């Protein structure tokens, strides 16, 4: 049994998973997620790992490769590090083998990643400087509107006359939203407007990596926002981008999954190299 751990240290949350990879068979054993909320991320990462290992009924010594991704290059207990897009691509293919592109929308940025069936990154695009299309922004607005994270999606779906958010900057967009509230625009219409403007930016990313005619898997925290998913599909239909975007209940783990799988792969390779060395 080869156990590999994947840890995705994000800006919003820490995700840890344990995989068992034996004879090419990939098996997901356990998982743990923890929101960061102004705590020490490195400590949280370690805790998440320990909890996941415990759930797997194993000990740290059983884990052959601890792979990190996200903002975890300097974690001292990791065996190796893979960069986010590498891992989201692989994790995406694991969750949705049909996917040929992965759209990762996290707390601060969005990334569109073009992949092939083996999870190889063929191209990508990231949102630049301005951050109005990110989880953090939606979270702030939700707080301002007095609704919870879970309510965002369902409310957005109820919109009948969405109001566009024009600003490219999240700060100015916040003001836009404040103005909307004072103009008595309904909450669903505001949320839908935000989703639409985010969707427009994300579709732009997808087009920039030249995704056509494919299934796109949404990963990262925002993948669970059904309002955004709906807005994305509408935007793609509107722009005649012939893709089908899907979400997966475990989307938020995609990075950690990819890290674990690549970790197992490297572990295998390194062991073989070692054996070769011993044999000679």
């Amino acid at each position, binding site marked *: 049994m080869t156990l590999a751990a994947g840890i995705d240290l994000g800006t919003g949350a820490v995700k840890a998973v344990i995989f068992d990879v034996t004879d090419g068979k990939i098996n997901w054993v356990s998982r743990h997620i923890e929101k960061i909320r102004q705590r020490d991320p490195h400590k949280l990462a370690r805790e998440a790992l320990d909890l996941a290992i415990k759930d797997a009924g194993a000990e740290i010594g059983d884990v052959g490769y601890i792979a990190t991704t996200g903002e975890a290059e300097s974690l001292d207990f990791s065996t190796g590090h893979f960069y986010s897009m590498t891992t989201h691509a692989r994790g995406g293919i694991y969750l949705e083998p049909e996917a040929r592109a992965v759209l990762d929308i996290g707390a601060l940025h969005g990334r569109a990643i073009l992949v092939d069936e083996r999870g190889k990154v063929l191209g990508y695009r990231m949102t630049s400087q301005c951050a109005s299309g990110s989880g953090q922004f939606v979270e702030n607005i939700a707080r301002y509107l007095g609704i919870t994270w879970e309510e965002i999606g369902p409310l957005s779906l109820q919109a009948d006359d969405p109001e566009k958010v024009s600003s490219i900057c999240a700060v100015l967009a916040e003001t836009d939203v404040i103005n909307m509230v004072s103009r008595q625009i309904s909450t669903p219409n505001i949320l839908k407007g935000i989703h639409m403007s985010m969707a427009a930016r994300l579709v732009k990313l997808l*087009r920039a990596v030249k995704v056509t005619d494919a299934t796109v898997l949404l990963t990262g925290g925002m993948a669970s926002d059904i309002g955004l998913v709906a807005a994305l599909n509408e935007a793609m239909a509107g722009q005649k981008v012939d893709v089908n975007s899907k979400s997966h209940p475990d989307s938020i783990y995609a990075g950690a999954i990819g890290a674990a799988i690549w970790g197992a792969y490297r572990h295998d390779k390194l062991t073989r190299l070692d054996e070769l060395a011993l044999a000679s």
Partner: protein
Amino acid sequence: MSNQTQITTPAASQEVIKDASMLKQKAMIADNYDKLTRAKELGLKVASTYVPGNLNELIMCFDMLNNLPEINAIQNGMRKKSGGMIMDAEKMGHSEDVCTYVKADIGNMAKGSIAPNGKPMPVPDLLLLSYTGCFTFLKWFELLRDQYGCETAMLHVPYTGDGIITDNMRDYVVKQLKEVLIPTLERVSGVKFDIDRLREYLRQSAKAEDDLVWVLKSAKNTPSPIDAYFGGVFYIGPIFTAFRGTPDAVEYYQLLRGEIEQRIAARMGPVTPDGDLGEEKYRLVVEGPPNWTSFREFWKMFYEEGAVVVASTYTKVGGVYDYDGFRHDPDNPLESLAEYCLGCYTNRNLPTRVDMIEQYLEDYQADGLLVNSIKSCNSFSAGQLMIMRTIEERTGKPAAFIETDLVDPRYFSPANVKNRLESYFQMIEQKRRAGGSARAA
């Protein structure tokens, strides 16, 4: 947003500006687009080139049509189509940071380059890269060449870094005309170059240029009969584009001059989209190109407050005729073409641009300077704050700074611009009340 009232093209705005000259220009433009889009069936060759330093008279010598991508971008800006085109270009991999004229053009090309008359533009037979006053032109035509794969001829016009046209510069341009451009044009068109034909066109140009200068200078009257920025962009149309050197242009400027003479006699202010301007409250000099995507909204912020632009630098990008009296000269045809290219506004160094603006402020008795800084255009914008600062120091007149873009609607923030303009006008007003700089009656 009310779309019905917007100006679509200079010509289509005739319900607003109904003068004969406007009708004439409309017909000229329509006719030109008609010719361009039917070039293939008419058996005419097309050269694409730029407004600053355009060699219209020379192009005409080879029976070729002149297509100007910048003008197409403006047209698309005014019809609110440029936004989508720019985004298309960005999706194709062009950076958010670069000049939006280029992106509007490239986005338009991807859509099949539809002319304002709804028909597709022909693929040009020649890209005439006259590189005057803007470095981006060079890249722009490299990009077009990459797409079209057609022949390209480059005319490098040196920048007048010391504020003067040196013999070396003039010789260099003339030599390129002789050894690169004319042979290429001959080859592409199959027409032999005839210098006398060029002389005749230049003679027509000079005539029209005289009248244009008269029109621009009419703004020295109080009240000014014209708006030299918002109206000005219409007045410069023919001379900046495919008409310089034609009898049509000569006729247009005569008509225009006549109309303005009447306005002066009647002590009338400029025409605006909402009719004649009421009281003239502020006289401004404007530096920088206008915003095309919200042209009318932008203009309204001025005329609503009684602000008239009496001189502008944008109306000099396609040739500076008033400041030091340049005219196309039939007696020195190639040299005068070279000097024309070298003397366009954005090819002049910053100190000269400052001198020009200073002189405008004085000659036109303006209350102050307004800088419209364009995100896209480094050629204009890099250094405008220095221009503003120097002008304030030298003249003591107040200046203001706003930021928009030519054809990217995302960079026109009406509330922001209005806020600054209002503050500026209130500031001028407050100063006047305080008895400081009383306006000349």
